[in-house]
């Protein structure tokens, strides 16, 4: 177990570039957001997209799924969405149907099934969460209960149903979206649940030229199909390679002091949690690997910190967002980057 080899790194950055190009051919003018999303995917975190409707969030998720060849599902969250709609339900096992045809007395005995088996044989009819890439649209419109169910699945990567635990497929990646402007009839995510998302990214409007190019495709009725450039297995390999990216001792100290600085700042109410720190380190590893480097640089951390940390520090209010960004910027400016002496 050492740092990823040159070949692995090359493969990883090639995959990054390929996914970026493939998705970028559909989601125009958003190379940064795409790269962040892929980073999130490889780092094994989940992504919170916050943006107004119509900027291509779904397109991003779908084309990401198509490009990576992952199985994807979309959940449109509404207030009446139930957890079972997400996870699926247990239905009686398949024999039940056959036995029902034979309604003569003692049929069960004849079939060699005891009563227990007859009535207890339930199977899972999986809900949309049993996918590799799940997109939860307008997550804040779902009821807290449903949110909790989804978030548990996100964290544990498993679903417990009637006492049975089901593993979710690998890789498992959730893209949740939120509309930042809407407040009525929504259930804002509590900070503990915001903490589960590795990154919060905003797409923003595409640049005018890309938007014009978008209009040029007006005649196309169906959404353009993205060619698959990799497989989920390759992604898992990549994640494994990226997790081996070297994080130097001074950088670890730097991360810790960054987190401590946010905690010490009274204006940033809850500071960065250890989970946030882990996430930041994982993301920075992937980011470094995507640049073909086998070690993390402070620049990577500084690059990613706003996306990884800001939503955990914000209280979810739109008005505070800029302020949080500013404060975070201050923190980043304040904390010195250590330069280790040579080994």
């Amino acid at each position, binding site marked *: 177990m050492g740092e990823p080899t040159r070949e692995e790194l090359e493969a990883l950055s090639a995959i990054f570039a390929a996914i970026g190009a493939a998705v970028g051919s559909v989601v125009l003018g958003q*190379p940064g*957001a795409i790269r962040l999303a892929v980073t999130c995917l490889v780092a094994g975190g989940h992504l919170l997209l916050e943006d107004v409707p*119509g900027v291509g969030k779904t397109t991003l998720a779908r084309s990401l799924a198509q490009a990576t060849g992952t199985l994807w599902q979309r959940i449109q969250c509404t207030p009446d969405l139930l957890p079972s709609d997400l996870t699926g339900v247990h239905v009686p096992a398949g024999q039940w149907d056959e036995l029902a045809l034979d309604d003569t007395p003692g049929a069960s005995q004849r079939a060699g099934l005891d009563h227990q088996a007859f009535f207890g044989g339930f199977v899972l009819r999986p809900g949309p969460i049993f996918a590799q890439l799940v997109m939860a649209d307008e997550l804040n419109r779902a009821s807290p209960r449903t949110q909790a169910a989804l978030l548990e699945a996100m964290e544990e990567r498993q679903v417990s149903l009637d006492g049975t635990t089901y593993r979710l497929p690998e890789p498992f990646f959730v893209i949740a979206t939120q509309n930042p402007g809407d407040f009525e009839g929504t259930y804002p995510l509590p900070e503990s649940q915001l903490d589960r998302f590795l990154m919060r990214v905003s797409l923003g409007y595409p640049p005018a030229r890309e938007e014009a190019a978008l209009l040029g495709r007006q005649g196309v009725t169906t959404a353009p199909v993205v060619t698959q450039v990799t497989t989920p297995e390759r992604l898992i390999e990549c994640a494994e390679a990226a997790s081996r990216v*070297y994080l130097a001792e001074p950088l670890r100290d730097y991360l810790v002091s960054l987190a401590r600085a946010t905690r010490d700042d009274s204006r940033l*109410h809850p500071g960065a949690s250890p989970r946030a720190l882990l996430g930041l380190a994982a993301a920075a590893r992937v980011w470094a690997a995507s640049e073909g480097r086998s070690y993390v640089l402070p620049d990577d951390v500084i*690059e990613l910190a706003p996306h990884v940390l800001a939503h955990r520090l914000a209280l979810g209010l739109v008005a505070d967002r800029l302020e949080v960004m500013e404060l975070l910027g201050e923190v980043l400016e304040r*904390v010195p980057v250590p330069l*280790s002496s*040579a080994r």
Partner: protein
Amino acid sequence: MSRGAALSSQREASRARRRIRFSPSRRGKALAGFGAAAALSGVALGARPFALIGLCCLAIVVLALGAAAVQGVRQLVTVRISPSFVPAGSPAEAQVFIGKGHERLVGTMPLDTTQRGIFRDAGGVLTFTGPLGLARWQPRLSELSESTLVVHPDPRLPARLGRGTEEDWFTSGQLRGYRRGDELRRIHWKATVRRGAAMVMETPRPAPATTTILLDLRGDSYTSAPPGSLEEAVSLAAGLSMPRPGEPPRRLVTTTGSDSGPLATKQRWRPVLTSLAQARLAPGATPEAMVERHPVLRRSGHVILVTTQAGLKSRPRRISRLTTVLAGAPSVPAPVPGMPVSKPSDGSAENAALLTEHAVGGTEGAALDAGEHIASSSRNSGGSRSGRSRSRASSRSTGATEPATRMQGRRLSPTGSRWLYGGGSLLASAGAVVALGGLFSGAGWIVPLAVAVVLGQCCAILGNSHGIFGRRGGLLALALGVVGSLALASLVAASWRIGWGDFGALFGAGRAFPQALRFAAVPAPTVPSLLAAATLAAGIISLASAWLARRGAGLSAVAPPVVAIAFASAEAGNHFSLPFSTLLAATAVAGGLMSALSLPGCSVIAKTGSAALSKAGSPKAGSSAGKGGCHASATVVLSSRRLGAWRTFGCLASFALAVGIVPLAGGPFIHIHGAGAGGVVHVDPEVSLVPDLTNVSGPALFTVKSSVPDYWRLTTLDVLGGNGFVGSVPADPVHPASKGGRDVVETFHLLHLASRWLPVGGVPVAGALPEGTTWEPWMATLAVPEGEQAGPGVTYQVVARVGAPSLASLFAAKVPSDASSLLTYVPPEPEAVRILADRITAGLVGPYEKAVAIQDYLRTHEVYDLHPRKVAGSPLVAFLFDTHEGYCQQFATAFAILARMVGLPTRLAVGFTTGQPGPGGSYVVGTEDVHTWPEVYLSPLGWVRFEPTPGRGAPGDARYTGVAPTQVGTKGPDSVAPIKTATAAPLPKASPIPVSSPARPARSMTGKAPAGEGPRLPEGALALLILLLAVAAIWHRRTRCRRFFASMRMPDTPGEAVSAWRKARKMLDPLVGPVRLSATPREYALLAGSRLDPGEAKRLSELAERVCGACYGPPPRHGRWET
């Protein structure tokens, strides 16, 4: 919840507190500091007018603050956004108005908007500066948006923009289908989705149709294109940017591939664009027609892409080559082939102004450029509307923050430079205050100090702007400048006034620097041009440096000392003609005020703070920086046109005031009338010399042949009675013959002089004299016997010993302890005279220094006038404090009394000045040469002559009195010819002169020149050496930097890399200035690279990569990196 609530309420409170901040501007602070210091020192020095001036300054600042407060509170600042409905992401313009009833537009600034038309400014700050620039107030735009942000009301729009329902939009009839040419950003996406067709929100007024013309100037675009296509593209773009008649100038030319093109290069394009446009804009050619006709124009929305056949395909690589081509184009280039050349229209100047490049900023930049170039364009974005405001903006903002904005992403705070400028201003003001105070108290070190402070400030500004000293070295530069210019001034003055040999002697005496400083300090009235030249030079240097530094700060900091110098020179130059002094003072005051007012009186500086985390320069910027734009930080400085009139008025008024007031003041600024009626001194020498002095056409009294011109003494007076010097009594000490002097043969021939006393220069040791002539040492006179007179026709010859005391011996000289009290006796006199005497000699130790100080004071403060005004009371008090007019008698007597007051034994000599040079090395002495001068007894040397009368100077004394000789003939003092004269009147006839009735024998000279008088390294040379060393140090730093990069071997091991990096940082830190601790090596390389040559920058960034690998990379396997 409680904590959150507390936090938010706290935030509210702090926000309310800082809603409007009033503070004195930098200039206001400087003026206030000056005022406070002036008031204090005025009180301390007892100069009431000076204290009043200080108080006035303070009051002006306080008033300005109050006015600003009133103005700021009362004036409603309204920000209106146009167009009234701002669709997502489209550029908008915020207009800032001041006033309630009569609103006044003070400025506009571009804004970025959020998705929903909600205005968001991301922390813009408006800075309003008061009319005199003394106070400013800063409301935050974001707070304005909470309180007074008024979105332009439009009855057809729902009241609450952005919060209305869709029905509002539909029913208000402002939605219509998309038509070709509509701006894409105006598409209403929600309605589009609902209707299933692209819908466009109609704005109530036609939005300012900003047509962006994108000129493709990328490097490779034209390599394969047909020749001339670049010129064609440029001319097309220029033609398109022309407005149609009656159309507002809304088109903006932007260029791609400008990421590395500095602003200067863009400026160079402008004339090319303009002239091409003039050639291109054929009659009847409208932009639309051009777009329709020309196949290479592509139009989407309101963005017109001007390209050639080559298209937008490659990345910018050879920008520099292309811009060189453009810059090399003739100013009026050949017309584009096939295009008719039209004569330049009348509005060409306007058109030229319209052709301002509009730097791409914010989301627009993202729209117009490929993703990779967002950063660069937004970095360059000035967003200003005209070249003038751009230059002003850059002159204001780039100065301190330019390196910061070059820094990608997070910014450096310019605190360091602010401190430097604060300190510099403070120091300059302090120097000016001290200088002015010294002026009022009569001290003499005004001019060199002020000059030094000005030069030091200039050094600091120059050094700072050119990065010579680094940021932190600014204070060092200031100190260096002060010391260096002081030394230089002293050196020049000393070399001008005394010889180098004497300078060495001074050094030996250990008093070289103070004395040289004094020499530099006291302006010699005989050379007013020196003073004027110094003043002029200081002013020119400071203005030039301020211009070079392109900073208002420099100018405003330098202005006070310049004014002070000019004022000081005007004041010190009282002996000038009155109109000249008046003009000088008026010019000084008006110049100072003009320079103070030369900055824009009222300005709006809007800084749209960028999202702190947008990583400009990285490809991710476009999307990751968050929505709502605010990628770029734009700085707009707009000045109100109205204030031009204010400024003109202020200058004129100040000039008029200065011209009007100064003549009224009439000469010296300070008048002390403290002398009570008890004054009893009536200075009136024994003989009034006025009739003789005014008798210019009178007969020649005698002629004298001498190899050394001198003052010809008749007699001396040392008894000061109630009515002045009345005579001499045989008293101690006597006049010794200086052993250090040399013997000179003097031949006198009396023509119209009849006197008991014979004129003689120096101390006679031998001679051929009339019968019975004796030497009376207590009076230092050659006298014929009592009751006789030497009349016309008498010729006599003396061998006189002329003393030449060295400076070292003068400094070492002491007041004899056994001097007769008669020689220091002063009758009762007003206290003011004694105070004046003390003040003149304050801080001086030796008797020689005191005497010179008194001499210089009289020479600079009083005016030579043969007919002084008669005023009641003591003539001495009148002379010193009121009329300031007198001739040699007043000067000599005043000197003697002042000198006696500080304990110097002093007497008065009566005689003649050198006279007019006659034939054969002789001098013809007439009645107008009658003169009186004081002599001071210094212990081992004897009587030393001084010259307090302006316009006179004894030959040979210039070395120690600092007064240049006058009336010296064309023959030099050391002419060889007189030797022959001496043989003509043979010396053997000379016999020892009998000494009559010796009160006491003449003392022999016991004191020799002190040891250590040998030649030494002059102090001036030392100063020069220091200056040279400083220059060499600066040069060394630059070359060391170059050599370092030239010789740097890319390190192979981590240890080498880190040590190389440390070395590079140590060397570059002073060059780069303060760098925040959180700068990573890459960021540092980027920051420092902007100050280095491209090659060096490249090597530095390479080194940064290596050190990154060394510090953060995995441990190497074999101690070396794999290549």
